[in-house]
């Protein structure tokens, strides 16, 4: 494996290179694509959750160009993915499904046409109410990311019967919508034979793969460009139906660029979400806090359109040592929109159940929650039997406890506020995608590295330049990264916290090839390409980032209002490429975890079949006033197995464990154990003095 021995740029606290553009409002996003005489597309959505469209009438609005209708729109080449088989027939599978689109000369005319459109449809009985007690739960073939649905080692039932102390509890998480700041948007231009898409996406190449398949096009006929992206959190990880409609609209109006920007409300039915989870957690322990068994049984809803199984039981498989283990996942398929990835799918909800259960066990045993976790530290990965490439959980718990001021914690009261503290572990796999390619070119004393990667607002431009600089052994100021265009070499999706690890590996390989080919004094125009496959060490080691999160929670003794004046996260996530942008991602994840703990919930009204908290007035996310002091730090971790940089990925781990730490702290403050998120004041009221 290539090594980067002389690190000059990696680890430097550099400001993000595009920051100036962003704060001055001049960074172009997909909806800002500079095109000549664009036209505007607005969607028509189904008013019912199940039935058939029988007619769509759109009056002649000045400026209206064309209307696409369910059943009569162009036939797509591939309809294998039902979510993307948009407008192919008249059936309605969920409320808020795209059943038509109007395209007009102006945004106003398109909105007016959409407003005046009369949709007729038949209604059939709909099934949108989720319950873990439904009698039609089924076992999916596998769960998200390809993990097995169920696992079992030893005999957990027997371990539960014979243990000194057991915890068997059910925890639930709510429905969450990803809600990136920038709504999903597309500018599409079908220019003769070629389709050009400006798209807000976590991966231009994956979008191209999808679009070429759906429309039956050769890859070289489709170009996807995505310069700046205002967040995605998984909802821009794969193309959704809106992208297909934008391309269909553009094909209907050749030569005219079509803009399709979703509204916030449309995002609640079209671009995915995290499903509810109901998690039955079991822990079997000896009196001195050594686990003999762990288990988690997950029930969640999914969509009848396309299955998505949130793998909430997966972290329980590897987190703590115990000879007897069992996990399972069951689904209820409903007439609801298609769920998708949302920041740390699996780990985020799963570690809520897991880590609140550990807190309950610690209390039951009278053992410090950190001590309990340390006592159950596994020597090898319990799920695979492989050694860990590095496992920094105990170091995070110990050093985090010191930084937070954990020792001597006591429940107390300050004025009207009940005060407590809580802790939870974090974990996220150190993924590296199996394929990416980087290209390097030298000219005029400067190096340009090109890779079709994405910057979701996280600092990719800066971090990739830092990696390339160290790969080449040149000052970072001489390196420029170019990303976000399928004209650049293939890059994997910015998902699974794998971006820097995957793309950086390709860049290191390109730098090695460049130096091998051109030496240290390359001629102008010198080029080299680096391509990587999957990491051979992946088969030998279990690779994870770990963390420990600490929360101080205040609960108002009269009203139950909850405040989190302090959150501290300590992480072991391998080499940190850029401390400034890394800290921003970690505290961003923690703040989103705080938001999950206290605020976020998409309330689906089963009488109608749609989420009724469908804007930012009703779907609460944490405000600045809710996030008082959110701090993150990391331990110095050197993992030579993960990739040449030693990075593990930091985009997701920050949200894992936060909600559990807050719920555990609220319990410490009040004595009330709330097992259902969000933790709102009405749940605490009955337990207050």
């Amino acid at each position, binding site marked *: 494996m290539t090594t980067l021995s002389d690190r000059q740029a990696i680890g430097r606290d550099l400001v993000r290179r595009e920051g100036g553009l962003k704060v001055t409002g001049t960074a172009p996003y997909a909806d800002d694509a500079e095109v000549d005489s664009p036209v505007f597309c607005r969607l028509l959505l189904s008013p019912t959750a199940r039935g058939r469209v029988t007619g769509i009438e759109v009056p002649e609005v000045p400026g209206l160009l064309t209307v696409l209708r369910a059943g009569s729109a162009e036939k797509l080449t591939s309809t294998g993915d039902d979510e993307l088989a948009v407008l192919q027939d008249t059936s309605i599978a969920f409320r808020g499904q795209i059943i038509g689109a109007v395209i007009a000369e102006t945004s106003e005319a398109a909105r*007016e046409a959409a*407003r005046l459109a009369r949709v007729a449809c038949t209604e059939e009985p709909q099934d949108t109410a989720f319950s873990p007690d439904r009698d039609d739960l089924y076992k999916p073939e596998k769960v998200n990311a390809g993990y097995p649905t169920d696992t079992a080692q030893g005999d957990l039932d027997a371990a539960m019967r014979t243990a000194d102390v057991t915890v068997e509890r059910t925890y639930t998480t709510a429905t969450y919508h990803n809600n990136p700041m920038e709504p999903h948007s597309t500018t599409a231009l079908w220019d003769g034979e070629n389709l050009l898409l400006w798209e807000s996406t976590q991966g231009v190449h994956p979008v191209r793969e999808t679009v070429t398949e759906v429309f039956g096009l050769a890859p070289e006929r489709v170009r996807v460009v995505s310069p700046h992206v205002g967040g995605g959190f998984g909802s821009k990880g794969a193309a959704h139906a809106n992208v297909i409609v934008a391309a269909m609209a553009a094909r209907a109006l050749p030569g005219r660029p079509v803009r399709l920007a979703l509204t916030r409300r449309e995002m609640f039915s079209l671009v995915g979400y995290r499903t509810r989870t109901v998690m039955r957690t079991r822990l079997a322990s000896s009196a001195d806090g050594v686990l003999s068994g762990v288990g988690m049984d997950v029930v969640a809803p999914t969509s009848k359109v396309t299955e998505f199984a949130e793998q909430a039981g997966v972290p329980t498989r590897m987190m703590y040592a115990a000879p007897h283990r069992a996990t399972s996942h069951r689904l209820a398929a409903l007439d609801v929109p298609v769920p998708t990835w949302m920041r740390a799918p699996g780990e985020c909800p799963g570690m809520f159940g897991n880590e609140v259960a550990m807190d309950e066990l610690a209390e039951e045993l009278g053992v410090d929650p950190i001590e309990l976790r340390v006592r159950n530290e596994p020597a090898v990965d319990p799920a695979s039997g492989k050694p860990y490439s590095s496992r920094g959980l105990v170091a995070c718990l110990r050093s985090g406890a010191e930084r937070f001021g954990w020792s001597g914690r006591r429940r107390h009261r300050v004025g009207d506020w009940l005060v407590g503290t809580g802790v939870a572990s974090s974990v996220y796999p150190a993924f590296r995608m199996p394929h990416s390619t980087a290209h390097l070119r030298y000219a005029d004393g400067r190096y340009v590295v090109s890779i079709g990667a994405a910057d979701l607002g996280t600092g990719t431009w800066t971090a990739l330049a830092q990696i390339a600089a160290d790969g080449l052994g040149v000052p970072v100021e001489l390196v420029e990264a170019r990303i976000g265009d399928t004209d650049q070499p293939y890059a994997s999706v910015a998902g699974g916290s794998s971006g820097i690890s995957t793309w950086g590996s390709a860049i290191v390989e390109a730098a090695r090839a460049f130096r091998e080919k051109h030496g240290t004094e390359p001629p102008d125009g010198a080029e080299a390409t680096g391509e990587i496959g999957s990491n051979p060490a992946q088969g030998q080691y279990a690779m994870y980032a770990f963390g420990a999160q600490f929360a101080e929670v205040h609960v108002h003794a009269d*009203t139950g*209002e909850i405040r989190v004046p302090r959150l501290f996260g300590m992480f072991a996530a391998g080499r940190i490429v850029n401390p400034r942008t890394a800290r921003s991602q970690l505290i961003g994840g923690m703040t989103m975890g705080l938001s999950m703990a206290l605020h976020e919930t998409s*309330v689906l*009204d089963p*009488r109608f079949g749609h989420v*009724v908290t469908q804007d930012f007035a009703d779907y609460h996310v*944490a405000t600045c006033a*809710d996030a008082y002091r959110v701090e993150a730090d990391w331990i110095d971790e050197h993992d030579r197995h993960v990739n040449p940089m030693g990075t593990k990925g930091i985009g997701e781990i920050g949200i894992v464990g936060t909600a559990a730490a807050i719920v555990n702290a609220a319990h410490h403050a009040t004595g009330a154990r709330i097992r259902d998120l969000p933790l709102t004041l009405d749940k605490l009221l009955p337990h207050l003095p």
Partner: protein
Amino acid sequence: MTPFDYRVPTSAGAAVDTVAANPAAVFLAGGTNLLDHLKLGVAEPEVVVDVNAVTSDEIRDDDGGGLWIGAAVRNSDLAADRRIRTRYPAVAEALLSGASGQLRNMATAAGNPLQRTRCVYFQDTTTPCNKREPGTGCSAVGGYTRYHAVLGASDQCVATHPSDLAVALAAFDAEVQVLGTGGTRVIPFVDLHRLPGDAPERDTVLERGDLVTAITLPALPIAAKSRYRKVRDRASFAFALVSVAAALEVEDGIVRDARIALGGVAHKPWRATNAEEALRGMPADEDSYRRAARLELADARAVAGLDGGNAFKIPLVARTLVAVLRELGGAR
């Protein structure tokens, strides 16, 4: 958004005449609620009459020691006014607890109390709503009721009034000056808003064309020591689950007088006259406060809904009211 005609009248009278003559005409002040409704399709006016230039943005002392507040005074300016902050601190607290800085810079003294409910079904034109479309039914009952009423609701409508300012104004005997086609008149603030009854589409007693030109606050020494306490689901930028505006006059441990209004609990700012009466002459202690809360909430009813409905709001109102009275009364 429906196309509409935008007009800037030359006088308040002309504004009144325009709106009175056209059932599809509306007034525009700060626009913080109307613009949402235009975008959502909740309001589809044909004519929008901008009254910002024909209403006053001044705050004046009146002869009796009270304040005259022009209809167009911005929430930010009203909250920052020294007279408001010293004579009626609960009014300033109510204003500052609402919305965001940007919205407070736009919202006006008259417009804010006239904002409409934030019931999710009222704001979603794809669901039935008696307030938006009379006779279609109430979707909130049995649905998402977290922000809905526990006092004075009807089977037609369980919506709450969302304004914070209105709660403080209701507590402090404010009055509303109205210009209508028949001239000017004065309405006690507590009578401005209605309970839903059989006509939930009507939020207030104002008639078509009625323009609020000013709000007056009387000289009220008790209000100099007052509080607005807003309990909500997050620390900022959220409507009240419940709120309490209160002032208490205590002498020798006895409550001499009280002013109390509740927010987030009814179709109108809820002046808590039963609680006020129950407190007068009683010891300023926990028992009196609890008794007052109990009496005020004797007829409170929860709305059935998802996740247990809103039953939690009844004890929450009581606990919040007791906490505020305890703070004002200085007794534990």
